[in-house]
């Protein structure tokens, strides 16, 4: 991490003003530059106290510039804190934040029934949290008031350990358009009734931590052989009619060569499994030994290429989309229809499509029309709120269970069938102290709720320095 010499690199400094990052040692806010070297882009900054740092930001195809996606000024969340100490220390959000929310994580416990070598939340332990369902219910109402109609994620710790989870899901479902559970799946696999109880409570879908198709991978990342219990969790979800998204934490040299197997496993378990959601490992919280080795971490384009290369031609780079909600360097997504014969048909072709990075179009983010967003728009502004609603609707279409066709005409039957055949491959490249860009933090739409009245961008909330000191979690 401590910088490599870039003295001999053919450099091209990008003319983007006011780029900022953090010192990975003390988390001080610093001016930063992007520096190109061959097919890579590095984020370069110098801390007066700790020296020069260069973090790998982007490597390979699609190229850094080709992936760029111009966007309009989105609506903003009402500021909950003043811009006082400077980004990213004021999050709440502060008036400098440039996005609204499409997702809010609600951490309902710090307990966990695993003690993984890798955990950005540094969760663990069996100590009781002492938070009653009534208190958590009040917080759900608070989140609704702060963030609006977002996808609500129950998270932790391991949220299934909280005995009030079904009751909270019922309440959340009355407040939010979709409710997601982020879980390691251990209890879902072991408890014969839990999946059914959660489905009956109104849970929309399960984000199931699922790192690989061999126990060797689970041992390295989670410290236990978990494959069987995870597959059992999927089976129980299928019986309960609960959609599942498989969520691997990707670490180079551990499971990055297992992506093709994960894809084939996911497709074999569709439509219960609605897709893969890839999360390249970050240098936050607890981490693997050798945490400062830059080769341990995958960039967004490397992840994109890896899934394509291992897919037997099913997934192709030109099918990928950049996001229009979060910053373009934060994610990619593929959306397919899986045919009965196992073929994947892209829902949008590469030519002339709304969100394709190859189209040059940006229709759903255009200034005119229903996707338009006014400067300084807020949740109270119907036109401004529309962009966030579109993002929420898109993930619901991808991950919710398709409704069974009951009567109706050929259109009804087609809609029901098509919904069940959608399979998505998505990736969220979280930021850490190696390569954080404050521009991306300010454009974040994924928040963590912090009691009593703050919403903190996910990557700011989980940011830790090289020695593991948190930026926000202890506040």
């Amino acid at each position: 991490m401590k910088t490599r010499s870039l003295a001999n690199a053919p450099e091209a400094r990008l003319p983007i003003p006011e780029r900022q990052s953090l010192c990975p040692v003390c988390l001080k806010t610093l001016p930063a530059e992007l520096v190109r070297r061959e097919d890579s882009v590095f984020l370069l900054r110098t801390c007066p106290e700790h020296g020069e740092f260069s973090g790998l930001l982007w490597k390979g195809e699609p190229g850094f510039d080709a992936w760029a996606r111009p966007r309009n000024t989105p609506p903003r969340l009402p500021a909950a804190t003043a811009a006082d100490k400077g980004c990213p220390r004021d999050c709440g959000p502060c008036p400098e934040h440039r996005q609204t929310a499409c997702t809010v994580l609600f951490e309902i416990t710090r307990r966990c029934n695993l003690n993984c070598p890798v955990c950005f939340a540094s969760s663990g332990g069996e100590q009781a949290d002492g938070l009653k369902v009534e208190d958590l219910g009040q917080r759900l109402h608070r989140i609704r008031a702060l963030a609006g109609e977002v996808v609500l994620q129950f998270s932790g710790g391991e949220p299934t350990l909280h005995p009030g989870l079904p009751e909270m899901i019922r309440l959340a479902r009355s407040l939010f358009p979709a409710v997601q559970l982020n879980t390691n799946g251990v209890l879902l696999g072991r408890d014969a009734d839990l999946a059914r109880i959660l489905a009956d409570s109104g849970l929309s879908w399960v984000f199931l931590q699922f790192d690989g198709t061999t126990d060797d991978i689970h041992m390295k990342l989670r410290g236990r052989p978990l494959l069987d219990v995870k597959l059992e969790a999927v089976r129980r979800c299928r019986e309960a009619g609960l959609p599942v998204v498989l969520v691997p934490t990707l670490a180079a040299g551990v499971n990055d060569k297992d992506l093709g197997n994960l894809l084939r496993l996911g497709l074999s378990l569709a439509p219960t499994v609605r897709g893969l959601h890839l999360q390249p490992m970050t240098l936050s919280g607890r981490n693997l030994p050798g945490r400062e080795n830059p080769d341990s971490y995958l960039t967004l384009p490397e992840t994109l290429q890896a899934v394509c290369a291992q897919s037997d031609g099913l997934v192709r780079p030109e099918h990928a989309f950049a996001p229009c909600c979060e910053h373009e360097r934060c994610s990619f997504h593929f959306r397919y229809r899986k045919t009965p014969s196992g073929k994947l048909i892209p829902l949008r072709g590469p030519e002339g499509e709304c969100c394709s990075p190859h189209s040059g179009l940006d229709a759903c983010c255009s200034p005119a029309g229903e996707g338009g967003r006014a400067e300084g728009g807020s949740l109270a502004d119907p036109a401004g709120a529309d962009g966030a609603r579109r993002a929420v609707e898109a993930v619901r279409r991808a991950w919710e269970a398709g409704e069974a066709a009951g009567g109706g005409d050929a259109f009804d039957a087609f809609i029901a069938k098509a919904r069940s055949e959608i399979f998505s491959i998505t990736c969220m490249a979280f930021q850490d102290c190696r390569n954080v860009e404050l521009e991306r933090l300010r454009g974040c739409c994924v928040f963590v709720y912090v009691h009593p009245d703050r919403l903190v961008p996910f990557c700011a909330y989980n940011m830790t320095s090289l020695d593991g000191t948190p930026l926000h979690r202890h506040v």
Partner: protein
Amino acid sequence: MKSESGDVRAEGWICAKCGVALELLPADATYMGSSFQVDLPRCPVCGLTFIPPDLAEGKMLEVEKLLEDK
């Protein structure tokens, strides 16, 4: 154009080009690489298909949204 039960109906529509009444006839719809047949008001002479507003703004819009990205 739509009956109380929600079915698409052809009564009351005349093809402007041929001057004959539209009839409910099979039409091919193709989405996402799949084709299916649905009965729609069509001219029995020239084959012109009429898409009623309720269908365009209802089920067809829902299909389009399935294809839509965020």
